[in-house]
């Protein structure tokens, strides 16, 4: 067994069986587990997926949203137990893998058009 196989095998013990992988430009609700003392609650962070990075257990998405007219970005490693669930609420139309240009956009222009292609079988409400 080569080195990468060993690493993959070790990682597979700690990864989730299934994760929802959104596409770039999708609007998602990320349910994060937050532990306050002994209590645990779920907080939802919703925004546009502007980047995906890494692979395996380190796979992460960057989600951007606007809070009080200020852009907020958070990176979520999707295999982390702290990410309870990812829900896709909208598909956006994009032609890039990284949407860094959204950072320079203000007002209406930061919205993405709804995706038209390949949506025949998508089940998004």
């Amino acid at each position, binding site marked *: 067994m080569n*080195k990468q196989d060993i*690493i993959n095998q*070790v990682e597979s013990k700690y990864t989730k069986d299934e994760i929802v992988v959104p596409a770039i430009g999708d609007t998602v609700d990320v349910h994060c587990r937050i532990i306050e003392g002994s209590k645990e609650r779920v907080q939802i962070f919703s925004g546009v997926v502007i980047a995906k990075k890494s692979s395996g*257990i380190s796979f992460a998405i960057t989600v951007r949203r606007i809070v009080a007219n200020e852009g907020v970005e958070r990176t979520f490693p999707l295999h*982390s*137990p702290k990410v309870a669930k990812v829900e896709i609420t909208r598909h956006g139309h994009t032609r890039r893998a990284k949407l860094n240009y959204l950072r320079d956009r203000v007002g209406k222009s930061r919205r993405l058009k709804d995706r038209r292609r390949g949506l025949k079988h998508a089940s998004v409400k």
Partner: protein
Amino acid sequence: MAAALLGRKVGMTRIFDEAGKNVPVTIIQAGPCFVSQIKTPDADGYAAIQLAAEDIKPRRSTMQQIGHDHKAGLSPKRFHKEFRVDEADLGGYELGQEITVESFESIKFVDVIGTSKGKGYQGVVKRHGFKGQQATHGVERKHRSPGSIGGHATDAGGSGGPKKGKKMPGQMGNKRITARSLDVVAIDKDNNLLLVKGPVPGGKDGFLVIRKAKRLYKRKHRLAQAS
């Protein structure tokens, strides 16, 4: 409990613990090792065991080594390393005995010894973290030089030369390094894997010696005592 293990670095990854915390881990392929020689105070003047690991083609080994391994009933091995043990513990070992990562099950903290990556002949800025000189204000072609290496005063050098141990340019890396008291995160008995927290010296495939931590930092000492 085994004295030590021989292994190879596989690489690094991360895992998430129960609390969801990210833990950087190094995967070490540890063992299985075999006892290839037992040194007794009567015969050798001190008590120690020699461990051997990893099979090697006989034609890659030497007759002396092959014979040495054969005495312990082993096939030719690549690595041999001797470890001091208490005289009282010597009875627990026999020639040819297999020592696996299982023997490290109850151990919380380990020291990992390896050879660091070689960086070649380096200047003081990279090697010792000196600041170098200014970029402007008339500094002439010595922006990364160490500056003065000692004057007349005896404490800073002088009296016949720079002070002993003065930090200067030289070979960096490719040196035996011990990473002390690393947390053992997990043990995989089936595949002889040992997961320790944080980095270990050397590159991938590097030869490593793993032993129980010799001394612990205060915080870790308390942790070990508590459990």
